[in-house]
């Protein structure tokens, strides 16, 4: 009779967290969650609808969605082949390439914007010729927003897709080759379908990153309402003139983030479907 009760007491004690860990853990949790809750509390829910459909906000939202989507397409077109190159080719110095690809991931986005300006600006290394030969000038245009967002967001896609490629069994590609498939056909019909979940995850992540991009965008594309003022820029601007609008814009972005997180829940927070 005494033995089971002792066992039970012991399991109870084991379930309790040590205070040294529990307190910082709870503070940490609060630190991450309270600001978001605070924002939701401060949200002027009664005028939310009006704010959301006001011209300023609608414009910024639309521009953000379009630019983020275009940037994502650009990242897919360039990033998936780049991931393939990093994962599958026997290129020398692949490790160095991989490191280079991940630089924009850790680089402060403002620095990225400066770098883009120096290269693609009207007097930049490449921008000069773009302007001279084609009359194209990227800085301070909507196209510039797309470029800035793609620059910052592409590493997310490349890393996700490369990871999927490394995890995929390359023997299936060999099987396809023995069946007469060229490398391109093999990539399209065998490799890509097998890494589809990784590509989807990378795409969503890339899109979310592009949507939230601030530093590189404002540096490279400036802040012109209707042309380059995306949601994050609008939030920043509105904070000085119309804090209510800033909150509404922020809530919209928060909502988008949550949707992204939910759509990736299996992969990122280990939830079961």
């Amino acid at each position: 009779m005494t033995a089971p009760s002792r066992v039970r007491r012991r399991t109870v004690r084991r379930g309790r967290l040590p205070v040294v860990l529990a307190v910082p853990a709870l503070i940490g949790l609060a630190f991450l969650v309270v600001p978001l809750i605070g924002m939701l509390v401060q949200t002027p829910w009664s005028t939310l609808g009006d704010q959301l459909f006001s011209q300023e906000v609608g414009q910024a939202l639309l521009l953000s969605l379009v630019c983020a989507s275009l940037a994502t397409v650009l990242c897919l077109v360039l990033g998936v082949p780049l991931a393939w190159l990093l994962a599958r080719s026997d290129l020398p110095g692949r490790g160095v390439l991989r490191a280079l690809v991940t630089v924009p991931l850790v680089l402060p986005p403002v620095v990225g914007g400066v770098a883009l300006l120096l290269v693609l600006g009207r007097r930049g290394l490449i921008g000069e010729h773009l302007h001279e030969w084609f009359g194209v000038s990227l800085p301070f245009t909507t196209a510039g927003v797309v470029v800035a967002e793609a620059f910052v967001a592409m590493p997310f896609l490349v890393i996700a897709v490369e990871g999927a490629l490394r995890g995929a069994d390359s023997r299936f590609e060999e099987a396809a080759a023995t069946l007469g498939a060229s490398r391109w056909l093999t990539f399209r019909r065998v490799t890509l379908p097998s890494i589809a979940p990784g590509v989807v995850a990378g795409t969503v992540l890339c899109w979310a990153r592009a949507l939230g991009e601030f530093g590189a965008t404002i540096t490279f594309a400036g802040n012109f309402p209707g042309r380059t003022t995306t949601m994050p820029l609008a939030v920043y601007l509105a904070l000085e003139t119309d804090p209510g609008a800033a909150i509404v814009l922020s809530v919209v972005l928060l909502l988008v983030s949550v949707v992204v997180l939910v759509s990736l829940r299996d992969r990122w927070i280990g939830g079961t479907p």
Partner: protein
Amino acid sequence: MTLRADLHVTRGAFRLDLPLTVEPGEVVALLGPNGAGKTTALRALAGLLPVTSGDIRLDDAVWDRPPELFVPPENRAVGVVFQDYLLFNHLSALENVAFGPRARGLDRASARARARTWLDRVGLADHAGKRPRALSGGQAQRVALARALVTEPGLLLLDEPLAALDASNRLHVRSSLARHLAEYPGRTLLVTHDPLDAMVLADRIVIVEHGQVVQEGPPAEVARRPRTDYVAHLVGLNLYRGVASGTGVRLDDGGSFTVAEPATGAVHIAFSPTAVSLHRDVPEGSPRNAWPVTVADIEQHAHTVRVRLDGDPPVLADVTPAVIAELGLSPGARVWATVKATEAAVYPA
């Protein structure tokens, strides 16, 4: 019209040297222990691995001749059945089989029609729409075979085609595979570590150990006259090397042996464990080989007991459980082993 290959592949410390010919309609089995280089040879033939030196030719076409020529796998007339089949999981059985014809330029409808014909030939017409995961091991193997053969390749390569199956399926799948191989007019190379697969499916067996050919011949010949301990073990025979003069053979590892047919020079002696009798005392005058041995190990098989015996030479004996009881055999027991001279095959080493 023959596959002629002289495969030399060096990978780190491993070296494969394998001359190989396969005639049209012939099935050659590459038999050897794991790590012998069988799969390396198969990959070289498929074009998944370039040879270091040597060449590969099918009919008049040169597939690989370093340094100047290498034909990639997609341009070789080759069909491969991989060890775990590697069926494309996102495609149905039919689409898997149609993949090859499509990749080789056939339009979708014709490719599907041909795939359907082949699925029918392997008896899987009813499973055309199924994904590979929904197929049993035996069915997946047949889809893989159909996928490899649908493009009518000049060379069919099978990598351990039965290894992924459980024992109950294997017998049935093996006989159906034998039937399809008999109908296939091209050259077949089968890579396996299972001697039974090689014996049943192949017209000729090439045995590879440590990247080298150690024996080659028809299955019956290999089964009767093994040349290495590995092969002897596979086919279940006692094998010794020795030097003969007349009917007496001095064994390399100690002891001597009397054989029925006179021979001279280096020879192999092989006999079945069932040819070995065990006695408590020295048997009296008969044309037998008799020598004292010590029981090292006793193993129960289906209806016989295999006894491993140490002595000059050591020997395996298959006896009945009655003999074990009669002689009171247990590890460490000392008995006499006898073998009739006529039971032993003698052939030049």
